[in-house]
């Protein structure tokens, strides 16, 4: 049996406080290293803190420097790291991004596909949307990364499943409001059922400017069982083990992924184009 040992880095980040956030991240990496985990996962935009407003623009360089430091650090430790940060491309566009870091390298970067611009959110003010959903090779297998809103839509996880992802990590900073944790649990379960894949969601904790990030990070196995849930509201490091073979066992008889028909996907595209007209 091939088990993945995951360190859930449910930290409290502080808005624009790179120094403080760095200390927290390093403290959790130390814990994960002691626990001999394969990977430590941190929430969305961990370097700067989700909800930082115009600070995203002011502190881009310090944030990138912290990512560089983590890449350097990864030479000396076993666990790989998945961490949310603000990425910038050669054109100077900003992205809400997540990096897979390990063995002294930045193995892959996922840029958030579905930016949030409703209710309290205004991500389009700062970020360009990502356009690709790729899987990255990690020592434990093919790995997909999504960011928060990406998983509120069925398509990104689906793309990763088609590309052979064996596990999907979801980094989030989800603000609490009524019934939010239950809503998340419901559609994360749907993504698992759709794709017959384990999903690990790591959420931010703590209050920032009156907005509470509810924590409660969740680990699902490929059959949709909630294997582990971190504490609500609180900062916490926890460890979960996920069986990466289970999806292959289930897919012997659950043929839905294999049987997804090209014609149906084509029809989906047609319908989408019609909707846009």
């Amino acid at each position: 049996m091939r088990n993945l040992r995951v360190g859930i880095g449910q930290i409290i980040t502080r808005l624009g406080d790179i120094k403080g956030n760095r200390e927290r991240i390093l403290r959790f990496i130390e814990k994960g290293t002691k626990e001999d985990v394969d990977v430590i996962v941190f929430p969305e935009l961990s370097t700067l803190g989700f909800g930082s407003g115009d600070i995203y623009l002011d502190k881009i360089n310090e944030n990138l420097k912290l990512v560089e430091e983590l890449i350097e650090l990864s030479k000396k430790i076993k666990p790989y790291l998945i961490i949310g940060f603000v990425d910038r491309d050669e054109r100077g566009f900003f992205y809400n991004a997540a990096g897979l870091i390990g063995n002294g390298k930045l193995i892959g970067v996922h840029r958030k596909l579905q930016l949030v611009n409703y209710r309290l959110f205004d991500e389009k003010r700062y970020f360009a949307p990502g356009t690709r959903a790729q899987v990255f090779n990690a020592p434990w297998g093919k790995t997909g990364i999504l960011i928060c809103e990406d998983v509120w839509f069925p398509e990104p996880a689906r793309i990763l499943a088609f590309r052979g992802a064996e596990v999907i990590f979801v980094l989030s900073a989800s603000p609490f409001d009524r019934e939010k944790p239950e809503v998340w649990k419901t559609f994360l379960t749907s993504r698992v059922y759709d794709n017959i894949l384990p999903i690990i969601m790591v959420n931010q904790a703590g209050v920032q400017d009156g907005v509470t990030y509810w924590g409660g990070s969740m680990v699902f196995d490929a059959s949709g069982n909630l294997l582990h849930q971190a504490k609500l509201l609180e900062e916490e490091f926890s460890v979960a083990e996920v069986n990466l073979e289970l999806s292959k066992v289930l897919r012997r008889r659950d043929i839905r992924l294999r049987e997804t028909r090209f014609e149906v996907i084509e029809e989906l595209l047609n319908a989408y184009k019609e909707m846009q007209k």
Partner: protein
Amino acid sequence: MIDIHLSKKEVSLYTNIIINSIKTRIDKIKAKGGVVALSGGIDSSLVAVLAKKALGDRVLALIMPEEGVSPDTDTNHAKEIVRRFNIPHREIPINGAIDWFFNIFPEKELSKREVKLALLNVKPKIRMIINYLYANLENRIVIGTTNKTELLLGYGTKYGDLAADIYPIADLYKTQVWQLAEFVGIPTEIVKKKPTAGLWKGQTDEEELGHTYEEIDKILYTLVEMEFSVKEASEYLGMPASVIEDIFKRVKLSEHKRKTPTITRLSRMCLDKDWRYPVERY
């Protein structure tokens, strides 16, 4: 649609979140603590108790009655709260300050209704001054006690009782405030009594507003959370459209009480429109 009443689990979770938010703000800005104006009404009693849970003895409750006008029951309830929950406090009657203000005020036509009404609003502003006096004395923040019902109706005095640094219960309707109050162990007689702003003797909120809080909350919840139009809300609730319209008008007219003063925009970086930084900023 979700009921306005919270489940038991939600009441406990919301209580936790509010306590956490008070504590976090104080810790982040390295303040010494918080000040709460405690009238003995349900809102301020709840905030005082939550602040005590968040800050321990770093909270200071200020009991500021207008003797002869503020109901004795309220003042007694305030004292009961500080005793029962062991909350550090001061008692400062504001009669002297009101008299002083009335004496220096040059417009002596006090029989005029508008003047009287305007002067009523001086009282919460006097309490505000004392709140901030104590806050400034020891690097504390003022913890506001308004709730979502009041804030939507504009039922509060701008720069008076609405003046504060944080509003921990302002996303809770009055109906939900009652639930949290009961949960944290505020005595039933405080929870059950008729709410009053204490502006004049014998005043009750529900008489002044013309509806019970239960009714008002149902209407507000339908308009704001469910986003129904006046007509839809009227059909849904089986209440006359005129009643709903009356409440909705209050909401529209009081928008200014929920905002910072509007800046006339001249630059590309107008501070209330283009500039966007969190308060808890590093």
